[in-house]
């Protein structure tokens, strides 16, 4: 294979373009620069404390009666009740 390597016109391994850290609007899902990685390098590393990061908020009901919207709603309901 020695002369095969020599004959080979040019290595085609193009350097992977490094993304700038600034994220711009790109709708397309880019190719990964590496083919495979271990669990340790994944976002969710099973068995690590990082696992329990709170990603989602299940209880979001807005119970702040002092908040503008609730306050005005409350006043309006009272007003209508009083007039009827």
């Amino acid at each position, binding site marked *: 294979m020695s002369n095969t390597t020599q004959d080979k016109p040019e290595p085609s391994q193009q350097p992977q373009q490094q993304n700038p850290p600034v994220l711009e609007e790109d709708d397309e*899902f880019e190719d990964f620069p590496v083919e495979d990685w271990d669990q340790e390098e994944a976002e969710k590393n099973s068995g690590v404390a990082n696992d329990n990061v709170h990603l989602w908020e299940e209880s979001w009901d807005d119970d702040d009666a002092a908040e503008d919207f609730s306050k005005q709603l409350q006043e309006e309901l009272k007003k209508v009740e009083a007039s009827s």
Partner: protein
Amino acid sequence: MATPGSSVLDRFLSSIGDLVRQRDGAQLQDFLQIEPPLSDIYQQMVVELRQRYPAESPQKDAELLRRCESLIPRSKGSSSWIAFPTFMKLYLTFLRDVNVENLLETYNLLKGLLNQCVLALGDSQNGVIVLPTVLYLCKVLAKLAMGLDRRPDLIAHLLRLEGRSDQDESVEKVTLVEKSANVVREAFIKCLTDRSGTPGVQGKPEGRRVGIYLMANLCLKLLFQCGKLRNAEQMFASISAQSPPLTYFPASQRVTYLHYLGRYLFSNSLFYPAQIALQAAYDQCHRQALQQKRVILTYLIPCNIIMGRFPSRQLLQRPEAQGLAEKFVPICQLIARGDYIAFREHLAFDSPANEWFARKGILLALRNRCEIIVWRSLARKVFIHGGFLGDPAAQRSPPPYLYLKKLETAVKWLQSRHVQSSLGAIGFISPSRALDAKAGENAAGSQIIYKVPDPDFADSHDPDTSGTDRIVSSKYDDYLAPGACFDALGQLQENPAHTLADGDPNADYSQHELDPYADRNTLDPEDEAQGKPTPMMWEIESILASLLTQGLLRGYLTHGNPRFAIPGARARGAIPTGFPNVWQTIYARESEDDNVPGWVKPPKPAAAPIGAGGGGRVVNLSGARPVGIQ
């Protein structure tokens, strides 16, 4: 083996022959370069090709093919791999003939080359050797097609020359991107249907099967680009039926695939499985792959919002979520506030926020699916501030309830707030066109939201307001004197002056009148005084009934003197009982089936797994059949 003194073409072909004998697919692909700029040695080979095998010489072409045929090993007994020499010949003539000035021709030549390579891939013995080449050619073709899709001006003149202009609208246009997707799908099928080794869900990625998800991902990329997601359905079905488990494939392929699968499920309104696939894509993604994580989050976040789960501050502060908070937090706030008008206006077709959501393909899902949660929030707030919350001290007291009249009051108050604000921003409401806010004045249709009245059905059809001098002036003039109509030959005739086109203006058409609101309740103040429900009340009842049906409210409705009552609230309290947590409600219902269509998982071992997870595990018997039944 060729000597160093021989021509580049000779050396090249000899090396190709070696690589085929060694079954070195990766090297073979590396040799078969096509993308400009080609290095000098390839340029030299092109010059040699043009000298020794000039184009337009069938005789020379046949000679070239014979040379390529000598590249493959001739084995006794087995059929020879004739698709490969044909492909090699096509590769060389591609290099010789391609004119990258004409991108359309380049595209077609490249597609032909790839088609031939896919045929070579189909060989059960040797096909796998060209798998890397097929993937490479697929990628180049996809890149070219998507580039031309973004810059249609580059080939517009060529399409015109071919007579394929936009004139013929009877035929559905197949874009270059879609055509490319179809070729890539052929390659995908060749990979999926490799019968060597153990195929199917019990199998491992070996032979051509290693390419299943590489091809699927490329095909999905193209289908998403050309908006032909429906074409992906068969692909997911084939994967479910024939692919080895996804977990045996490299992380990059898994994450890319789960991302596309999640988006596909999302766009089919299958939000729960979509959420599982997208969350898995996010979890398995490389920690440093910010761009990919960001795209995943762009879909994972709305998917969760629709099911009543909002992104946490921690999530939105991550680098990959940069900029996403300003898109999604306002939506979450509007849902929690319960201002349905502000919510609708935020995602209305003319709102500034809408463009980004529309481009991502998540606008309609958010708009259509979240509004009901907004109504839950509004009903909940009205209940807190205006409902009967029950009397815990009393031994026997009626269950907590809410007079729906109060909800109607709240809706009217919201409408008046927004009408006022349309004149200038006040308080928590930003200025708007306040279309929904004026719905309370609608003579027909909804009292809650704005819909353009259909002139055929709306009574408010007033010819005088059009400003034109119409000859006919009656409520039927859209029929008698329309702005345009079809003549006896089926040709559209414009009638800008609205002259009499048909019929007799003096005839009585009332018996032919269509009225979709036949049982319309007129907005009669007397009715209201007599306690008859208003049209707005009817709508409010329907909305609450819908919330009840979806499990987002718990209790019952009474129709006479409309109320929402919450029985059985003694233990947990009226609010948590009547207004259960949205996510927990949806999760409890949906998680009964955790299967994600299109995601192949390893078959469950027959025996109970040892040391897995701990805790009480539920055995899934959904696939079990009664004894004695096949």
